[in-house]
């Protein structure tokens, strides 16, 4: 196995609200190799989303260490983390989270503009990405005018716009019907195969999970078990 792009060791995360203390992550260790597609599964409240948030630097941790590309997140300021996310990460959410006031293309342009790409270049790249997800003809529509599957494809295009090293996906198919789910997963797989990006996907659906190289099962804030998915038989180099 090559040097892992994501290295998490003994990660502990606790939520406190008044008298209630929830141990969301209890000493989690996880390594993800570059280009690997990992599915995180488990029952509600098992800590899947928390783990994703912590690994991506969206949320802080209480103890342990997380390194991305061998760089530890613990010492980074909020600003540095933002920069880091802008440069190395892409996000796909269950409810798409497109800015409703911008068109599909403008939504995809956001991370590019953020990275300082010139406007015409950003526009061109955004259109390419939309083409890749098969939505070029709806580029000027606003999210309200798109179906759920289409919106999620725009979100994926946005996540991939900067060609990030890692794409985090939290229930990307959670709001979609089977047909659309399959379509979305195919797009993700294709990106993974063609561009060699690392994917961490939180999902409830075993069907989705099975498509990944590896499935990590969580329970009560810990990794309970893991096994290879069907994707492991694919073109990904292990």
């Amino acid at each position, binding site marked *: 196995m090559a040097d892992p792009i994501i290295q998490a060791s003994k990660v502990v995360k606790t939520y406190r609200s008044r008298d209630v203390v929830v141990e969301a992550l209890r000493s989690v260790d996880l390594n993800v190799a570059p280009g690997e597609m990992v599915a995180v599964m488990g029952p509600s409240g098992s800590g899947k*989303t*928390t783990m994703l*948030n912590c690994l*991506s630097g*969206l*949320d802080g941790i209480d103890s342990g260490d997380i390194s991305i590309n061998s760089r530890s997140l613990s010492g980074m300021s*909020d*600003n540095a983390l*933002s*920069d*880091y*996310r*802008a*440069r190395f*990460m*892409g*996000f796909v*959410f*269950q*409810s798409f*989270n497109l*800015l*409703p*006031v*911008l068109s599909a293309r*403008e939504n995809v342009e*956001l*991370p590019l*503009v*953020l*990275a*300082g790409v010139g*406007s015409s270049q950003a526009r061109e790249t955004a259109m390419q990405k939309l083409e890749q997800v098969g939505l070029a003809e709806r580029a000027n529509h606003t999210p*309200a005018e798109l179906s759920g599957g289409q919106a999620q494809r725009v979100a994926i295009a*946005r*996540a991939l716009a900067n060609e990030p090293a890692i794409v985090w996906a*939290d229930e990307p198919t959670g709001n979609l019907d089977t047909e659309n789910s399959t379509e979305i997963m195919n797009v993700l797989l294709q990106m993974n195969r063609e561009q060699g990006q690392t994917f961490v996907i939180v999902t409830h659906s075993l069907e989705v999970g099975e498509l990944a190289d590896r499935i990590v099962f969580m329970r009560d804030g810990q990794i309970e078990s893991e096994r290879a998915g069907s994707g492991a038989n694919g073109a990904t180099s292990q």
Partner: protein
Amino acid sequence: MREFFGLDMNTVATVLATLLIISLVIVVILGMRNRILVKLALRNIPRRPAQTALIVVGLMLSTTIIAASLAIGDTVSGSIRGTVLDALGDTDIRIRSAADPTSIVGDAYIDAETQQAVLDITQSNPNVDGVLLQIREILPVLNNRTQLTEARMNVVGFDPAGTDGFGSITATTGETLTVASLQSGQAYINETAADEIDAQAGDRLTLVTPTGRHDFTLNAVMVDGGLSANDDRLIVSLPDMQRIMDRSGQVNRIDVSLLGGREGSADLSDEVAEELRVQFTDPEIASQLFDALSRVAVVAAIEQRIADNPGDTINSDTEDDLNELIGEIVSGDRTSERFRALAVKSQVAGQVIAAVESAGLTDQVLPITFLFFQVELLGVDEIKQDGLDFAELIGNIFVTFFSIFGSFSIIVGLLLIFLVFVMLAAERSSEMGIARAVGTKRRHLVQMFTYEGVAYAIGAAIVGTIVGLAASGGLVALLVNAIGATDDDAGFEFRFTITATSVIAGFSLGLLLTLATVAVSAFRVSKLNIVVAIRGLPAELVPSEVPPLKRRFQNLGIAAISPVWQLYLLVRRAKSSRSVGVDIVLLILYVLILPWIGRVGFEVWRLVSPYFRTGIPQTVIGLLGVIITIVGEAGFVNSAFLYSMSGSLLLVGVGQTTRWLLFRRGTRREVADRIGFTAMGGLLLVFWGWFSWTSFSESITGELDGGIEMFIVSGVWMVASGVWVIMYNADLITNAVQATLGNNRTLRPILKPAIAYPTSSRFRTGLTVAMFALVIFTLMVFSILNNLGNDIIDTPDKATGGFDVRAETSSELPVENMAASIEAAPELNANDFTVIAASSDLAGEARQSGAEELRFLEVPVRGVNDDYLRNAQFEMSHYDPAFLPAGTDTGDELAVGRAIWAALANDPTLAVVSNGLLEAPAGGGFGFGPAGFQVEGIAQDDDEEIEAFEIAIRQTRGQGETVNRTVIGAVDPFAGSFEQSDDGTTAAVITTSAAIFDEISNEPVPFTTYRLKLADGVDPGRTAALMETVFLDNSLLATDTFEEIEDGIAQNDAFGRLFQAFMGLGLVVGVASLGVLSFRAVVERRVSIGMMRAIGYKSRMIQVQFLLESVFVTVIGTAIGLLLGALISWQIVNDIQDSFDGLSFSVPWLTVTVIVVIAVIAALLTTLIPARQASRIYPSEALRYE
């Protein structure tokens, strides 16, 4: 404050309070029936203290503005009231000689025999508690110790025996002084005057009178107020005064104090004054007058005049008096006291004389006029009541002014209330949707929403009233700071005053307006669609439910018979023994008619409103209105309001129809909206900003009646139109901004969403932009108009006539020969004076030949010397070109003015009138015109060229000869506009050669005013001061005319700033609305913010984005306000340029910059907190709520 827009203030307060109580009682009854709803509703209030505070602030601003304007009115009238009471003390009524006191020969004196008669009559009146004989003259005084002088000291000699009932005099040392203890040659001085000449007890003062110089020893300095008054006052004993004035045994005033103390009583004052007037008539002459009026032809003439009421000169009071007079005459009682009381009323006398004259009874006119003037032996003035009435009048003018200018802010405040509730409803929508889904009834939701709103509204009205009162205190402090707390000459002092009536009225009006807005918002909530609410979809996606036509007709039918239907429901429910409380309340309401009409109106609206979408009803109604105003001749159908509202409705209809047709033809909704609204807004802007000002518009409508309300209406329409156009074309702005700023690397990622968010929610943003625009619009118009007259500083000769110093003397102590006196004075250099122009104003009466008004009405007649006519550079606003020498350049205002004055110099039968004597422009002004003489047929805004006309002039009260003069021009309104007479107004006079005095006056009239032109390089201020010293014995007052203009402008500016500060309150509203929007946006966009943070936006960028959104809204609103404000001011200036030559439009850039900077900074500051909140949203937390 006793009146509000002409309505009795107590009635206003009572009606408002009653309406309020009724509304609250209804809410309470509904609440009692379902307490759980109240509990649920009120639960929301403490849950979010910050939001509650923001809502209360948002809701209170209208109330604040209303309360502030009422309190300012209170303060102004209270200050004048206090000044009047200080000046008069216990004096209620002043008795004077019937000869006019304003006559040039000074106050007429009353002989000892008449004094005794007055004492007998007044002292026997049970309501009188004091009568004080006195002489009052304005005399120059010198303090020998300090060598300081006061040219115009009010010197009063009081009868030591008569001061009972007039209060006491207190020395500054605390002891009580009496007039009786004044020895001969001793005097008291009040503090105000003591300050002027730095006087203290023991000083030797020299008084100058027509009989020479007289020395007095100052016994004590008095505290101001009461007998000591609050102007510059010196008190001596009556015998001393009679001695130095050489008026042995005579007095010129008799003051009467009534029961009721210092505040006095209006009813008592009326009653006693009327009794005294009757008693001070000559019974013999009254009987003769009675006989003269008893002729059938005379009575018929009076009746005819009442019926005709030419020029509306007979008001309802006078009409009653005239009818009563006829009744008395018909009754045949020659000794009737009532007849005598009516006969001394000048309005009655004037109308009767005019009636006799117009009936052609020429032989009767002179005898009747003569009898009317002789019947009154002594004049009885209700000075205290008149003063207090004046205080009320000025207070009312202030309230009217503040309310009118404040109404923009009030409108904006109401929009804010609406916005707050729209936001609240948006926030609650999913909660309410779920409540509906589990079975809550629609009306329960509305009720809950209303209860919550009422709770906020009550809190806001209380806070708003308090803040409003405090704000008015702040504004008054600002004003006092700017112009000084007291005006020493008038003894005027600002006293912060608030009356309970104003507090009640302000609170009730504010709360009622808020409640009404709450009701409208609640109604909006009731239309909530459950699915839409739960899923948080934009409301536009759901077509509104329209009941079928048949149902709408049914509803209207039921509404038409509301009380009957309600009675039927009541009976039916009572039969099935259900509770009928609500039915009874409703029944009572319907019987009160107004709610019934309201319901019918509402159902009519519901019947028609579905068709409004098509724009056809608006077009039809608008067109009808326009046609009516074009065809209509007078009255309501000729109102500018009706015309412009109909015109606007027509254009709205055109826009809507366009939109509807496009939509029906399959144009995309957004495109149809854009075309429709842009057309509508554009057409309205053209209509309001250009078309209605054109002469073409006037040529089709004729002259329309409209007042200051048109300013408000036009402001609201123009701003609304501007906002429509901008909001429906916002993408153009987006592109423009992006093209200019889009290359900045740090700004680029935030710029797009920062513009996209506000432009995508058109309603909210439009409302906020409109608020800003309205406020800035008023500020802009006001600062441009306020700046207008200030241009005069560049062309001061228009106001001063080219004279550097104006010197006025008392008529008692005139300067015999000014040129010789200057020559003789060692302190003055005769070579410094290049022109000595002299004039005098004589109390006169005039009548225009051929005019409808047949009475002679009062007007000062200004006789001027040849130097005046040959040198005055006052310009003319109107002139008869026939009197210009051939070749005069009519484009050169100064040349025209000079030519007209020269014409007067060459022909003493020519005259000019002040511009103020012309008719006020149609539809303009507040109608505070002079009660005296006015020129008919020429308005101030008419064309410059007029035709000369004849007027007859005589001395006041028909004394002396009557002469004719040909009026060939009207003097520019700027002329002398900074010269203030004692009552603070600029005199409107008839000016002609002084030769007129020889013809109309029985005695020689000395010159009392000198206008002096100085040689180059001579300092006018120094010369004025020197002249006052040299001519102390003439009580001469000299003014540097240029300095006078500067002071006048400074004072105008102070008032201008007060108004601006007041209207600035509106800015607070606009800013508050931005705060509401931003706070709401943070909540609504939590998840989006989380996502943006996730993909790499730094927290600072989020903050900047929120700030940019506010700046965007502010800048658009400010730009619309500034542009439209400038446009309408430009039109106003163009319009009034006809009456005020030389006014030019200029933008006060400094003020504009200050306004813009303040608006933007305030907007940034309010957004700072929500922007911070937004930037602190933790991405993982925010995303968890998705």
